[in-house]
């Protein structure tokens, strides 16, 4: 398939996953707020986890409030990672590959985009944020379901899945970090009901609470991290994402599993091995935040080599109409 098209599918899929995960970040924060008595520093911490604190300060000044942060992360078009901005990118990418994706996918993308755009004007998100962010997640799930049930399992589908899973792995790692940033656990809180509620909120935001309960009896920080980071079967767990992204990568190239023929396969394989043989108590001993930070760096490396391996032949579209049609 065309390199440009592969690039667009991959990014369309990544941006869609990104939009959903911003909603998840906000949701976990809203949950945590309900059980806390102060929101000091918490909204700023949320912006930190998304990595966009600098742009935020430029746009909204030093003080981070609920209103400014929600607006910045959800509707601000100047923030390239706001939900509205990422959905705009989803739609722009989809528009350039309309003939590749199914019309059902295109319609869902349109519907989703218009829903968020119109919500920006109506103020409904600020009034009932839980409902709004829930709906964002649902629309994204609907898109994923439509894509899964209407696309051929060919190269294009594998590029889409690989993009989605790489983005998800990155965002799940940041979601775990939300808890780290916001609630550097105070020794006296560990194991208390408050702490448990907070870990449960984290699981909930990853749509992981139900599946977690089927596997573990109690909510402990170790097993929550174990589940979100190293589970091989839960679809938002980081290891699962890496495993399946690797399957797609190998389906695209035809390289047998366990071998590599390009840099993307080598780095993805190494990440796979690292996570497979990691132990949760080592990770916590070394420092969870540092581990996640390092993981995000490695994952970016995988993304870069995917670009070099598959998309480097393509060039961006020039932004001109190209003469009149008759």
């Amino acid at each position, binding site marked *: 398939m*065309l390199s440009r098209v592969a690039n667009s599918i991959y990014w369309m899929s990544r941006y869609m996953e990104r939009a959903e995960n911003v909603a998840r970040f906000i949701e976990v924060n809203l949950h945590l707020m309900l059980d806390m008595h102060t929101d000091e520093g918490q909204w700023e911490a949320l912006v930190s986890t998304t990595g966009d604190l600098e742009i935020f300060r430029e746009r909204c000044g030093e003080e981070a409030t609920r209103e400014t942060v929600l607006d910045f992360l959800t509707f601000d078009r100047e923030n390239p990672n706001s939900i509205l901005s990422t959905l705009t990118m989803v739609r722009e990418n989809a528009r350039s590959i309309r003939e590749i994706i199914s019309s059902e996918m295109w319609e869902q993308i349109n519907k989703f985009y218009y829903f968020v755009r119109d919500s920006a004007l109506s103020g409904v998100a600020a009034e009932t944020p839980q409902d709004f962010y829930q709906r964002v997640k649902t629309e994204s799930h609907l898109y994923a379901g439509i894509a899964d049930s209407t696309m051929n399992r060919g190269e294009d589908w594998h590029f889409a899945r690989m993009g989605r899973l790489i983005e998800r792995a990155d965002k799940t790692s940041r979601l775990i970090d939300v808890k780290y940033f916001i609630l550097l656990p105070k020794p006296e809180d560990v194991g208390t009901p408050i702490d448990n509620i907070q870990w449960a909120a984290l699981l909930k935001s990853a749509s992981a609470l139900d599946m977690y309960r089927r596997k573990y009896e109690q909510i402990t920080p170790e097993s929550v991290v174990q589940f979100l980071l190293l589970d091989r079967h839960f679809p938002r767990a980081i290891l699962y994402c890496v495993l399946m992204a690797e399957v797609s990568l190998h389906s695209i190239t035809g390289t047998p599993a366990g071998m590599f023929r390009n840099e993307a396969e080598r780095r993805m394989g190494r990440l796979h091995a690292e996570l497979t043989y990691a132990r949760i108590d080592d990770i916590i001993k070394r420092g969870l935040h540092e581990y996640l930070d390092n993981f995000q760096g490695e994952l970016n490396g995988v993304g870069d080599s995917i670009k070099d391996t598959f998309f480097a*032949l*393509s060039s961006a*579209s020039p932004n*001109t*109409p*190209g003469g009149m049609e*008759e």
Partner: protein
Amino acid sequence: MYYKDYDTEGFFDEYFHADGSPREGASILLKRLEQLPGGELLRRQKATEARLFQMGVTFTVYGEEEGTERIFPFDIIPRVIEAREWEALERGLKQRIYALNLFIDDIYNDKKILKDRVFPEELLKTSKCYRPQCEGFRPPRGIWCHISGTDLVRGGDGVYYVLEDNLRCPSGVSYVLENREVLKRTFPKIFEDSKIRPVDDYPYRLREMLQYMAPDGAHSPTVVLLTPGIYNSAYFEHSYLAQQMGIELVEGGDLAVTDGYVYMKTTKGLQKVDVIYRRIDDDFIDPLAFREDSLLGVPGIMDVYKSGHVALVNAIGTGIADDKIIYAYVPEIIKYYTGEEPILPNVPTYVCWEELDRKYVLENLESLVVKPANESGGYGIMIGPKASARVREEFRGKILEDPRNYIAQPTVSLSRVPILVGERFEGRHVDFRPYTLYGEDIYVMPGGLTRVALKKGSLVVNSSQGGGSKDTWVLRDLS
């Protein structure tokens, strides 16, 4: 009743005779529409619009910020063309494209028509669309204009006149196909009863024609559609046609010239391309041969084309016959190459380059439509009866300064078709663009794009200026 007080206001109406009685072709449809419960038509109109928006059948308006897409307004009352009317139209269109193709081939090669002084050489040399790069070149199978979308208007006398030939990148066929799709859902019962000729196989025939153009020796040729990209106003159509034909939609950056062939850049390396349906103007297609500043084209593609290693559809250089001055000579061109009388007449045209014509035009500016020779989309036109004295003076100056670049035509009182306004019919002016494919044989799709000026009294049907569209039903011959 939808048309109880319907007034044709002295115009030729496609649905009703001057006395208000329905024409034969419209009568079945009108009877069915009357059987619908009150308010039902309006409800279906709204549902259809919502459906088009959902499908993303939109076009881009130039010069506006984000949110520049709009749906192409659509009116659910179709235009109806009776079988015998269509039969004459079809013959006329085939004759015209056949002759135009011989003309283009002649002027770039033997130049017989110039030597015989049927057509003035000076006009050719001064045309912006003449491509000296094509001299001595003959495209595969000798065909230059593979796809044309002829603009026709019907005057007060009920006669169809050719207004423009559109031999470069005629757009709009995707709307014809989508309009039909949508209207079938709007009026499923009526479709069953009416004998309407299908348009759905257009993409299939288009692909067949494109494959027929492949350079000799290309087995199972690779065909692609080349688009300027998502910022082009017709991007929707490019993408739609590529999808319907099952071919790759490529941008200039996706193609590269290596070792005398054109390749596309894929995730598995370079793949050779044999036929390109290009929706990019000549000017932009190769920065080495034409506009150097073009970022949209493919450097070096012109050399590959001339060596016969890739086919371009339509051929480079066909725009010459879109020059409105050359249009004025088409009746002569048809007689010269076919020995026949033209079946479809031109709208009478005054060529300002000719002294007598120019004199007449300057004396009658208030009753004429003045057009520049090389614009499309309704830009740069003066409609005499509606223009202010200041604008008329401005055009007088333009004509005197550059007579070669202007033609003038009498205003044609375009025929009308009813549209739905609330619960009633009202007449609106329409034009018509059927599409012709020239491959192994010449095929005219039985249907076309009916554009309608939705504003009451308006004669401007362009989508950029308040126009909409209608489905067009060509009826089967029942005899």
